[in-house]
C-alpha cells in the first residue's frame, strides 16, 4: 500500500516499494541493530491498516524479541552447562584427599600391584573390598568395539552411498534412501535387543565363539547404528561433486570407474571423512547397544572374541548404584568427561572437513 508512510525502512514509500520488489543484496527489513522499541513506538500513531499485534501491545513486541534472542543461546548454554556440571562432579578426583585414598589419576592409568596378583595389572573392579579403577580395560574395550564397528560401517556406508549416487536409478534410490532412514530411526535399545537375543546366538554358532556376548557381536550391532550416519553424509558429499568434474574426466576418455575412483571420490573425500568422523563419535558414545551386547566383562585383551566393557556402558551400568560424591561416582563422571571431550573432538574434526570440502568445491559449484 502506498499509503503506509511509516514503513520501517524510513524511506519514502515509493522507494521502499521499489526496494521490496527488486531483489537487493540484503533484506530491506530493519536489521539487528535497529531497536525494536523504536518501531513499536511509531506504531502508536499507526493508521488503520497496521496489523493489530503491534498497535495494541507495543511492549509485547520488544519482550518477544528479547525472548527470542535469549532463547537462541540455549544451545551454547547447554554445551557450557554440560561441561561445567560433569566437570564439577569429576573435579574431586584431582584434589580431594578423601578420594585420593581410594583412587588417583595415576592409579587409573598405570598398572598397580594388587594383593593376590603376581604382577602389576590393570584391573577395573570398583565394587570389591579393595576398589580398583584401572581405566585401560574400559578404554581398550571401547576402542576395540569401535574399531570393529567402523570396519563394518565404513565400507558398507561409503559403498552404499557410492552406489546410490553413481549407479542406482531413480527407483532404486527411492528404496534405499528411505530404508537407511528407517535404520537410522531404529532406537539403539532395539539394536541392542536384536544383538543380544538374536545375533549373538547366530554369530556364536557360525564362528564357534566361547562367550556368547563379546566385542565382535557388540561391534557389528554398533555398526548398524553408524551405517546411516556414514551413508547420509557420504551420499551428500558424492552428490555435491560438480558435474563439470565428471564431464571433464569423461571427455578425457576416462572410464566410469576411473572417473569415480580418481575424480569423484577424491573430490568428495573431505565429506566422506566428515561422515566417518561423525560416525566415530557416535560409535564411541553409543551406550545401549554395547551395554546389552558386549558381555560387560572388563578384560584387557586384544581378542575380538572376548567380552568387553566400554566406557559408556560402564557409566550406564554402575552410576545408578554408587554413593553420590564418592570415589566411584567421581570416577564415572571423569569417564563422562573423557567421552564428552572425545566426541567434541570428532565433531569439530567432522565440521572442519565439511567446511574444507565446501570451500574446495565452492569455486566450481
Amino acid at each position, binding site marked *: 500500500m502506498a499509503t503506509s508512510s511509516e514503513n520501517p525502512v524510513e524511506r519514502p514509500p515509493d522507494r521502499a516499494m521499489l526496494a521490496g520488489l527488486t531483489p537487493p543484496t540484503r533484506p530491506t527489513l530493519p536489521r539487528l541493530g535497529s531497536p525494536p522499541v523504536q518501531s513499536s513506538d511509531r506504531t502508536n500513531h499507526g493508521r488503520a491498516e497496521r496489523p493489530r499485534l503491534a498497535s495494541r501491545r507495543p511492549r509485547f513486541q520488544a519482550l518477544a524479541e528479547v525472548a527470542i534472542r535469549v532463547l537462541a543461546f540455549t544451545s551454547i548454554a547447554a554445551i557450557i*552447562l554440560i561441561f561445567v556440571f560433569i566437570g*564439577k562432579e569429576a573435579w574431586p578426583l584431582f584434589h580431594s584427599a578423601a578420594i585420593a585414598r581410594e583412587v588417583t589419576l595415576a592409579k587409573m592409568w598405570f598398572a598397580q600391584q594388587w594383593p593376590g596378583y603376581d604382577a602389576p595389572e590393570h584391573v577395573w573392579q570398583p565394587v570389591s573390598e579393595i576398589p580398583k579403577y584401572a581405566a585401560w580395560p574400559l578404554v581398550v574395550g571401547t576402542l576395540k568395539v569401535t574399531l570393529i564397528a567402523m570396519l563394518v560401517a565404513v565400507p558398507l556406508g561409503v559403498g552404499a552411498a557410492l552406489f546410490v549416487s553413481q549407479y542406482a536409478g531413480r527407483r532404486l534410490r527411492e528404496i534405499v534412501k528411505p530404508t537407511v532412514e528407517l535404520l537410522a530411526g531404529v532406537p539403539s535399545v532395539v539394536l*541392542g535387543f536384536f544383538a543380544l537375543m538374536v545375533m549373538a546366538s547366530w554369530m556364536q554358532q557360525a564362528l564357534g565363539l566361547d562367550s556368547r556376548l563379546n566385542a565382535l557381536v557388540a561391534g557389528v550391532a554398533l555398526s548398524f547404528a553408524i551405517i546411516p550416519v556414514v551413508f547420509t553424509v557420504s551420499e551428500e558429499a558424492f552428490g555435491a561433486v560438480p558435474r563439470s568434474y565428471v564431464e571433464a574426466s569423461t571427455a578425457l576418455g576416462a572410464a566410469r*570407474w*576411473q572417473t569415480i575412483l580418481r575424480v569423484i571420490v577424491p573430490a568428495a573425500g573431505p565429506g566422506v571423512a566428515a561422515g566417518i568422523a561423525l560416525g566415530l563419535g557416535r560409535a564411541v558414545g553409543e551406550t545401549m547397544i554395547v551395554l*546389552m551386547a558386549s558381555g560387560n566383562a572388563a578384560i584387557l585383551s586384544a581378542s575380538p572374541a572376548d567380552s568387553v566393557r566400554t566406557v*559408556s556402558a560402564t557409566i*550406564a551400568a554402575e552410576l545408578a548404584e554408587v554413593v553420590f560424591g564418592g570415589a566411584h561416582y567421581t570416577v564415572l563422571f571423569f569417564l563422562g568427561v573423557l567421552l564428552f571431550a572425545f566426541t567434541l573432538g570428532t565433531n569439530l574434526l567432522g565440521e572442519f572437513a565439511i567446511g574444507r570440502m565446501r570451500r574446495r568445491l565452492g569455486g566450481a559449484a
Partner: protein
Amino acid sequence: MKRPGNRVGSPPASPAADHRGRVWEPSQGSHDSRVGSPPASPAADHRGRVWEPSQGSHHSHRLGDVALALGSGLAVALVLLIVVVILGDVTYNGASHLTLGFLTQAPRDGMTAGGIFPAIFGTVALVVLMTLAVLPAGVATAIYLSEYANPGSRLTRLVRVAVNNLAGVPSIVFGLFGLGFFVQFVGAGIDRALYGGQRIFGQPALVWAALTMAVLTLPVVIVATEEALAAVPRELRLASAALGASRLQTIVRVVLPQALPGILTGAILAISRGAGEVAPILFTGVAYFLPKLPGSLHDQFMQLGYHVYVLSTQSPDVDATRPILYATVLVLLLLTFALNATAVVVRSHMRRRFAGAAS
C-alpha cells in the same frame, strides 16, 4: 565418447587383467591438488597422460566398472538385508502377542505376563513434556539464526558450532548432565528454597528426564525449523515489510505460518528420537517397575525403551518374557516409525507447496 550413465547395464567383462594401477600410475597421487583447482583445470593437467592408457584396453574398463558397481551394489544389498532381517524378526516374533489387552494392561507376575500400559503412558508423558520444553527454545534459536542474526558474525557461528556439537554429544553424557545439573543442582535447589530441604524435586523424576531429553533433541528442532524458515520465499518477507509490518510482525504473521509444516516435522523427529532414547533417562527418572502411573512432575515413570532393556537383560525367566519382549520392541518400533513416516509426509508436502510457489 563415453558418457556417464547406463554403465551398469553393460555386459560383464571378459576376465582380462586388472589394469587399475598401470592406467593411472603417471598421475602419482597428484589428484588431490588437481581436484582442488578450478573446474576447468583437471582437463588441462592430465591431458596427454590420461588419453594414452585409456585407449589401451576396453576390457579392463569393463572389468573396473563391473567390479566397482558390484562392490558398491553389494554394500547396498547388505544394508537393505540388515534392515529387512531386523524388522522381519521383530515383526514375525512380536505380532502374535500384540493385542489390545497387551497395550492397556499393567505388567503382572514379575513382568512375565500382562501388558505394557505404564511404559506407554510414561513414554507419552515424557515426550509431551519434552516437546513443551524443546519447541520454544528450538524455534526461537532457529528464528534468531535465520531472521535476526548476521550470518557472518562470530556469535552466529558460535551458536551454529554449539548446535552441531550438541547433536554429537553421546546420550549417556546427557544422562550424566541431567543428574548433575537438573536433579542435583536445580532440583535440590528447588527443595532447599521451597520445601525446606525435604526431598521432592531433588531426585530423579519425570520432569528432569523430560528436560534432559529436551536438551538432547534441541538440535533436531533447530535444524528442521531453520530449514523450514529458509524455504519461505523472500518475497513474502519483503512484501510484508513493504506493507509496513515490523520484523516481528512479519515473522509471526507471515513467516511462521508458512514454515509451520517444517517446524512440525522438527517436533515429530524430536519426539521420535525422545521416545527411543534410553541412556539419558537412566539416572534422571526412569524406573524399573512402578505399581502406579506417574501423577506429578516429580514422580518417576516407566518407559518403553527402558522396559525393553529391563526385559531383555534382567528377566528372571527369559522364555516366559520372550513374547512380551518382542511385542514391546514391536510397539516401540511402530511408534518411532509412525512418527518418522509422518515427518517425511509433512516435509514432502511442504516441499511441494514451496516448489509450486517458487515457479
